[in-house]
């Protein structure tokens, strides 16, 4: 693939920075869902492009690891391609688009459809780590709310949804409780993916570069989505199935195909879709 770049430390970050981030990660794993501040470093791309996730990846990746990077479920979008190439060049690691073949998966906005296994690490890019931010702008106060487990105010957001739309309309970045203790933002994944977080065999790490926070969900940890007794948590569903692989169980993107408004629904997870097609071709 690409040439390994010279003149850089392995995976770009210096070893001291990686150690600092690993210490934050250890703390994060020890306190599931708790946001650990860390000394975020500058990466050679702007904040908002996944610098938090990249710093976590740089700190945990080893020479023998295989890396997969997805953006909105796809391996072939600009952001995913750039980050994958970045680590291929600075760390010389193998990369893959196949979920099952990856040791590390850095993601923006999706969890792969293929179930992850123990030993894999899923690394989320997080724009806004604080789920309480919308109701409480003061950091000093949100820290206290987490410490004292004061999460009633969070329910206000769901109340507003039901009052306005008749159902909980929040469809992504849907707040969760981790291990029945900390309220956590799952990053802007669709709520369709929330159930996958619950008791996931893989380790989940979250990096927010702009706000310099790291948090984690260790393997097999309980993750529950907030709801009301009379308005239980529900995931999105579609009338359609994937126009390419006919999947009925995956998260679908709506694609406009011409100026006349024709449209089709396709899997957002490109790897999942491709594997299904390959399987169908192999066993017609």
């Amino acid at each position, binding site marked *: 693939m690409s040439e390994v770049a010279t003149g850089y430390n392995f995976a770009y970050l210096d070893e001291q920075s990686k150690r600092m981030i690993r210490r934050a990660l250890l703390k994060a794993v020890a306190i599931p869902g708790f946001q650990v501040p860390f000394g975020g470093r500058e990466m050679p791309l702007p904040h908002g492009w996944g610098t938090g996730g990249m710093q976590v990846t740089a700190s945990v990746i080893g020479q023998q690891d295989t890396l997969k990077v997805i953006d909105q479920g796809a391996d072939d979008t600009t952001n995913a391609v750039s980050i994958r190439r970045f680590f291929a060049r600075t760390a010389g690691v193998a990369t893959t688009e196949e979920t099952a073949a990856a040791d590390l998966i850095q993601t923006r906005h999706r969890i792969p459809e293929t179930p992850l296994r123990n030993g894999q690490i899923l690394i989320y890019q997080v724009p806004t780590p604080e789920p309480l931010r919308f109701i409480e702008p003061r950091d000093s106060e949100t820290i206290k709310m987490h410490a004292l487990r*004061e999460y009633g105010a969070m329910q206000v957001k769901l109340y507003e949804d039901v*009052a306005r739309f008749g159902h909980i309309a929040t469809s992504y970045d849907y707040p969760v409780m981790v291990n029945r203790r900390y309220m956590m933002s799952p990053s802007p994944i669709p709520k369709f993916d929330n159930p996958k977080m619950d008791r996931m065999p893989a380790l989940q790490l979250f990096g927010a570069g702009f706000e310099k926070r790291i948090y984690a969900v260790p393997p097999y940890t309980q993750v529950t989505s907030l709801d009301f007794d009379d308005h239980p948590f529900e995931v999105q569903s579609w009338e359609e199935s994937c126009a390419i692989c006919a999947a009925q169980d995956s998260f679908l993107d709506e694609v406009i195909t011409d100026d006349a408004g024709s449209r089709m629904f396709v899997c957002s997870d490109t790897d999942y879709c491709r594997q299904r097609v390959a399987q169908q071709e192999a066993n017609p």
Partner: protein
Amino acid sequence: MSAQTAQWQDVAPLLQVRELSKFYAPGKGCGDIDFDLYPGEVLGIVGESGSGKSTLLNVLSARLAPDAGQVIYQSEQFGELDLYACDEAQRRVLMRSEWGIVHQHARDGLRMNVSAGANIGERLMAVGERHYGNIRERAQAWLEAVEIDSSRIDDRPSQFSGGMQQRLQIARNLVTHPQLIFMDEPTGGLDVSVQAKLLDMLRGLVAELGLSVIIVTHDLAVARLLAHRLMVMRRGQVVESGLTDQVLDDPQHPYTQLLVSSILQN
């Protein structure tokens, strides 16, 4: 009438304040404050601005640590609590359950960016209510109790008049059936015509729910209508206290006499 034959019985105080002091600078704050507040009592704290009454209210309501002294509160959930010796977590639980705080400016006490219903429902959700239907029903009932048309439940407080905002703030506080309410100039920013209605409503709710109230006001007419007894403050000290109408009609301290004689007679 059965009420007439009922015997008066003394009860334990809800709040015991002992040698409480908080000074920002010499003469700025309040000092040597001692009093008991009993269940169902409405205590007015009056005095000019700068007399230390708002500082005192903040210290009493666990929002400002004193330099010295104690505030002992009889909690429904925790029993007897020394407010500044107990856990902060307990103080915060009190604030969203057994206590209410009505601010002078409604926007300090309301969430302006969420609906009226959510403003009332928040305290219910904060104490663990997770049934949307119940929350909505109770929010509606409380809107009606404070004379706001329940069809306004999904409107934001920013669409309400000043008087409505103040009533919404009261409903938001009362929904968890608190036993103690702190009020800081609750009619302060309102038109005179709106004040009367709010006062009448407050008086009715306080009597009906048997609330204990500590109300800070510089308006002696408000104090007369709402408070059972008064503490008159000047330069951080209580100069006179007693039954409201006795303090206002037969003031003993020179400062109270001056305060009372300064009111325009109607």
